[in-house]
């Protein structure tokens, strides 16, 4: 009987040690194995930073953080100097057909003439564009390149940041479920 209890206690100890060992290895793997080229956004679950910046197409219009309230927004950071933005831009025309979201562009560190030429040649599917000429608003959003896309809920809260091109696969597998989730909560 005592031997039985002793064996059980030893196997429990062994099980505990092996489990702890595996947890440590898994923890290391998860932390070290992350793609370090993709930085997690610090804005997740926080409201968009306060700002007042002029509109790209009409400099008499001032865009601000309150403009995101009451709608589901996809905020796309783009620039005429960004090659990947040329690849991504035609997709936005498709995504604009989704009437549940408002597409907003953030023209990042660009010259106005080049940005306008980009929109003229590539098309403009955005409801409006923020003109962040000096990149300071981009820094407020923690932007470190283009393209980047933020999913913002109706309260102006950032739910997700995608770094890189929003391909139709990304849109279908990540963005659509997130949009549906926001709609359910309304």
């Amino acid at each position: 009987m005592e031997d039985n209890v002793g064996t059980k206690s030893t196997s429990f100890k062994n099980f505990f040690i092996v489990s702890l060992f595996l947890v440590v290895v898994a923890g290391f793997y998860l932390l070290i194995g992350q793609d370090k080229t993709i930085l997690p956004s610090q804005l997740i679950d926080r409201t968009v930073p306060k700002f007042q910046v002029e509109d790209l197409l009409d400099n008499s219009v001032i865009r601000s953080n309150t403009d995101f309230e009451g709608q589901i927004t996809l905020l796309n950071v783009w620039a005429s100097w960004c090659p990947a933005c040329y690849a991504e831009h035609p997709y936005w025309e498709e995504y604009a057909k989704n009437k549940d979201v408002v597409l907003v562009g953030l023209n990042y560190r660009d010259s106005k003439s080049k940005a306008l030429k980009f929109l003229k040649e590539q098309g403009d599917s955005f409801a409006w564009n923020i003109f962040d000429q000096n990149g300071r608003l981009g820094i407020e959003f923690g932007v470190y390149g283009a393209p980047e896309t933020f999913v913002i809920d109706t309260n102006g809260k950032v739910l997700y940041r995608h770094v890189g091109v929003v391909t139709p696969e990304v849109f279908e597998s990540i963005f659509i479920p997130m949009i549906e989730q926001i709609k359910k909560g309304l």
Partner: protein
Amino acid sequence: MSDKRVKIISLLLTSCMLLFTQVAKSTIDSYQFEDPEMEARFQQLIFELRCPKCQNQNLADSNSALSMDLKSIVYEKLISGETDEQIKSFMKQRYGDFILFDPEMNRDNAILWFGPIVFLCLILIIFIRWYIRNRVNNND
């Protein structure tokens, strides 16, 4: 071959080589400080802060546009009287702990700090248990 011909060929070769040279150009930051102590703080901060775009470089070494912007922000904040901690906190709020080359310990990275110690202890425990069991078996 006459001397004159050698000179002409040399001249032509040199001209050809010059055609393929490239002009190395670098931008030099011009941050003006009246206080040398503040300048030292600036240098230290841009040494400690990592460029989010070119991730293996600090702001001091990086010439990316984002690094230039972040350096300008560090400069403006120093001039306006902010402390080093306030400036680092500003950067962390936007780019996370990643922006610090020497990250502070927190809940998310605790395993990286304590993991190796726990790992070593586990190995030691396993080894000692194995050793004791083997010795008992040998004595039997």
